[in-house]
């Protein structure tokens, strides 16, 4: 591979900073705290859950301006920040004036011990610079801080501070023309390779380069958003010597929105894919809204969620129910696989050494397809699902012609409910008495596990309940009272 760059470039306080000496697993948080001594950013968990380490990354947005996203610096690899502006809590106050977010937090008594505070400031900074700066309600603020834990305030004052500060038009001196110029200077658009053959951080800029590099180093760790891999480093202390980052490959972050299908690059983040996926169905939007947090979605990818093979990933069941296919690439060869066939067994996928997920493709549901999906977890925000259910029913004149049902959390892999699907065939939506065999069939499809998230019996009950819920909703009127969308308060679904 012809690496053309051996250093990353980030924008700090208006200046482009070049960093060439870093370990492939060095985190952005360590860089800030240990190297820059920018100690305002805190470590509360090193696993992406508390948000104390939140910083904002700015990159050129769709339009003219800069788009700011919050990220958890504790699990963000330094190399991934290449080409971005990095803003920390210390950068916010200008000329002795607090940033509007900070000022509002003072006024609302939104800080007590102060340890989580820098993270909240930065998460709210990203909200302040949100894409569509119209009215804001409490739910949106809650969503914006769904990745920030506070143990002192009970959140109320923080939410109030955010609502106040974000009511005014953006005026804080960030995201100016100078920022864009600096970002242009920092983004070299060339393949990056820092280190040597034994230990490196690489970020190719084309799929071909990636394919070649990965064939050469099939034992390298592919990193998209590092929201899984980051924890291998910080929690499991796995030694990782070779990292190939996918985030700089335009073709792999692209989203192709065709009239009847979507093709999503494996390195597209949840934030990138949000609009396209949400448009498929409001229930998908709702699952995405509750998947991780803004920090996780800013960098985490659907590709990573598919590729990690976890039985409790949220997107695979959705995509399986939608009949998604995944494109796998090895060197110059491409394989197309139904997503459900990608999962062989717990921890085992149909992927060869040197092979990677390039993209996946879903058909958009047609007018006769009714789709429903639900995420069940103990906690509403940022919680791993106990059960995730997705249903796609093909309906003709009130009769179910075919069904695709997939569950997460019910088996060692994301899995289809073939018996239940069969039992639903030719069943009338208008006659609930005919639904029971399908609900009962779930017991043949799945033998879920007991763990600390939920008992097996509870999982089974929930699975049945969700199937019934889906059927009830699809059979009935499609109203706010039946759909699980929007605000938490509106999640008042008539289940029965």
């Amino acid at each position, binding site marked *: 591979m012809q690496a053309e760059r051996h250093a990353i470039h980030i924008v700090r306080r208006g200046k482009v900073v070049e960093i060439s000496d870093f370990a492939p697993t060095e985190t952005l948080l360590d860089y800030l705290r240990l190297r820059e001594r*920018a100690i305002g950013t805190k470590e509360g968990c090193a696993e992406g859950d508390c948000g104390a380490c939140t910083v904002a990354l700015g990159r050129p947005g769709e339009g003219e301006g800069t788009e700011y996203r919050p990220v958890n610096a504790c699990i963000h690899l330094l190399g991934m920040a290449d080409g971005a502006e990095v803003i920390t809590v210390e950068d916010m106050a200008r000329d002795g004036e607090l940033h509007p977010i900070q000022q509002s937090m003072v006024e609302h*008594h939104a800080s007590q*011990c*102060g*340890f989580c505070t820098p993270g909240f400031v930065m998460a709210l900074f990203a909200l302040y610079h949100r894409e569509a700066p119209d009215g804001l309600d409490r739910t949106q603020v809650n969503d914006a801080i769904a990745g920030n834990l506070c*143990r*002192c*305030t009970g*959140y109320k004052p923080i939410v109030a501070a955010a609502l106040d500060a974000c009511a005014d038009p953006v005026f804080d001196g960030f995201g100016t023309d100078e920022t864009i110029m600096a970002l242009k200077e920092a983004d070299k658009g060339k393949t990056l390779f820092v280190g040597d053959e034994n230990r490196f951080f690489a970020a190719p800029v084309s799929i071909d380069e990636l394919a070649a590099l990965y064939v050469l180093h099939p034992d390298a760790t592919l990193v998209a958003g590092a929201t899984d891999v980051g924890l291998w480093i910080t929690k499991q202390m796995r030694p990782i010597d070779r990292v190939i980052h996918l985030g700089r490959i335009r073709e792999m972050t692209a989203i192709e929105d065709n009239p009847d299908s979507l093709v999503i690059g494996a390195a597209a983040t949840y934030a990138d894919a949000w609009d396209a996926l949400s448009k498929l169905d409001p229930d998908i939007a709702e699952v995405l809204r509750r998947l991780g947090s803004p920090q996780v979605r800013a960098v985490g990818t659907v590709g990573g969620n598919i590729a990690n093979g976890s039985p409790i990933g949220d997107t695979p069941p959705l995509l399986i129910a939608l009949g998604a296919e995944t494109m796998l690439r090895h060197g110059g060869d491409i394989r197309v696989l139904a997503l459900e066939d990608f999962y062989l067994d717990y921890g085992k996928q149909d992927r060869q050494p040197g092979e990677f997920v390039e993209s996946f493709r879903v058909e958009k549901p047609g007018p006769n397809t009714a789709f429903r999906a639900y995420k069940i977890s103990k906690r509403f925000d940022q919680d791993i699902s106990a059960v995730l259910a997705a249903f796609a029913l093909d309906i003709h004149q009130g009769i179910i012609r075919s069904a695709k049902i997939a569950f997460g959390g019910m088996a060692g892999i994301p899995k289809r409910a073939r018996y239940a699907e069969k039992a639903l065939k030719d069943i009338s939506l208008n006659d609930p008495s005919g639904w029971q065999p399908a609900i009962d069939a779930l017991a043949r499809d799945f033998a879920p596990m007991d763990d600390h998230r939920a008992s097996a019996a509870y999982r089974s009950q929930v699975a049945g309940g969700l199937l019934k819920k889906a059927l009830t909703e699809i059979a009935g009127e499609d109203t706010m009272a039946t759909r699980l969308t929007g605000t938490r308060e509106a999640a008042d*679904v008539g289940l029965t």
Partner: protein
Amino acid sequence: MATRTFGEPVQRNIDDRLLTGQGHYIDDIDLPSVAHAAFLRSPFARAKITSIDVSAARAHPGVLGVFTCDNIGHIDQDLPLLIPHPCLVGPRTQRPLARGDVYYVGQTVAMVVAVDRYTAEDAVRLIEVDYDPLPVSVELEDAAADGANLVHEDVAGNVAAHFVQNSGDAAAAFARADHVTKITVRVERSTAAPMEGRAVCARWDRITEQLMVWDSTQAPISVRGGLASLFDIDEDRVRVVAPDVGGGFGQKVLFFYPEEVLVPMAAIQLDRPVKWIEDRTENFIGSTQERTQVHTIELAATKDGEVLGLRDFFLHDTGSFIPYGIAIAQVASTSIAGPYRIPNIEVEFKAIYTPTVPVTPYRGCGRPQACFAIERAMDKLAEELGLDRFEVRRRNFIAPDQFPWKREGLLFADGLAVCYDSGEYDTALSKAAEAIGLDRLDEMKADARARGKYLGLGLGFYVEGTGLGPYEGGHVRIHPITGKIYVNTGLSTQGQGHDTVFAQIAADQLGVDPSDVIVVEGDTGAFDWGVATFASRAAVVSGNAIHKAASKAREMVIEAAANMLEAAPGDIELAEGKARISGSDRAVTLAEVATATNPLRYAFNKAAQSATQFAPASKHDGPPLADGKAPGIEVTDYYSPPYSTWAYGCHAALVEVDPALCTVDIRQYVCVHDCGNMINPMIVEGQVIGGMAQGLGGALYEKVQYDQDGNPRNAGFMDFLMPYATEMPKVDIVHMETPSPLNPLGIKGVGEAGTIAVPATIISGIEDALKPLGAGHFHEAPVFPHMIFEKLGGADQAKAS
């Protein structure tokens, strides 16, 4: 008279600093050539150590020292039993590094100090330890059962303490009663999980022979005393500073944690600063926890619902050690009768060892368990007697004119008989009923039913003994150059806003703006008499000490200013940083007063020059400083409460349950609370809502789980679920202010108020909601969806769907 700031929502003095990332926590302290410590911790709940081999770790490049129990000298001893009590039958405390045995997963076995944290952690993994695992009984009831596996071989039945207390004659009351209600309730293990874990940084200064320790602690003075005695260094050669502390909630009161001893020891031995920062996993396995108790409570009542007697027997899980003595169990047992008269009480508990993380107080300290027991029992009593839940409570409340209400024979954690000082319980209950919309309850229930949900009313009343003695001090001094007020006290802050409320108290006496009061706490170099921050005591005990000191300083200022202005003391008023003759513009600034009262040789600033234009501040003959006088305006005073002051409150909630998914949604939450006079309602609200969030965790989300081998199953934020913003319901706070007669400011503590009643409230709401489905009683906290599912499993499924 200056505008009084007491009672005003004054903005906090430290916020600008915290909001801009200038807060300084231990990990932010940058010392040249600082070394880092990391610990090897036991992977077994109970095991014998047969060998430890540290040779590879020692040889690892960058390692400066590897320590086991064999090379830490005289520190290899049992750490102190902090609060001894005669009922402790087998008190055991832990050693800094395990010797021979390990007693819980997470116990410190070895320490590595290296040039950086990564090297230290790598070297930890090179230490080889052979363990012989022993069988364990992890669950509290199993550990208390006959034939249980023992945590400490020589402590029979795993009983650490056994204690019975009596007030009145319970046996007679039970004999007399028309009705007896009996329930068993269980509250699970939780943890404080402060956002900043524990942390220690130490430096030994060879030149001054001073040991400097920065510690993320709630008790710097105690740590200082402990270190001085352990290392045999004069106390004034040890300085302990708690800088900004990222939350504590009780977990950081304990001294000593092993790390707090070992890090300073390493700094002395290696002659190099050493730092240790706890990571999140360590916080779950190496920092103390609280809550597991199983109460069997009985109420003896008349048929009208008057409770004549109460019996409570409970098991208290103290984990593998009991460094805090019986504090938690004692608070639980003495709070058990809640706001009710109940004249005859018998409480008995056993503190039981389990091979888990040691237990010390966490915000609430036994009170949430006691509240859960009595409140769930009162609901059951109402149900059994066919009475209204509100009415049963009303019939038993201590009436306002019955205070002080003493429970002779029940000794509270301060060693004194429980004595409630003041309250308006009935009013609190009525306010809660009104705020939650009790009169519309049926309507709201019907509305929920129409949406396929079940709604219930949650109710919980709590009392809280706050402001425990023995004492705290306050030091007030007016700085001669700036005229600013310096205030010191011995305890420390973890974000409660002490610096602001203490500033308000001093500012009110001295007629300055609270922002001109500089509060320094948590530094033994600034003030070193006192105890610590816990048990909702800071505002009460330190606050009143500062008030007393500041009011003496006020008298001194008035006397000096009267002399300087040649006026009568009665004509002097203090406002805007000046002492002025009322109704005139003749005034001296506080800086001038402070200067004039300090006989100076050099007039090096403006205050000193201008002070000479006035008459002398002191009317006396002889030497410049009168006999028995000190220079300047400086006062130290102390406050020692006669006994604890009892805050209280009533929580109510509308709780909606989805019977198919078994999920819980809190539609509305009301906290009526009374902490006496409020110094700063904004800060009080912050305490209440923050506490409420922790209580919510204890009601629905947070449980430290161990498997049957004693391995923690959810030692991280991914699996130990604390509420995020979305989980917080709409909370309405209703303030009541019944002054405490016990202290000059009339205040009561509020630090734990928000937390105590939440599990009782929410879980009673779940029970009420699911009554139509015959789900039965919910006597465990927290309640998870699968538990609702199991309860509904017994109910008629057809009705549920």
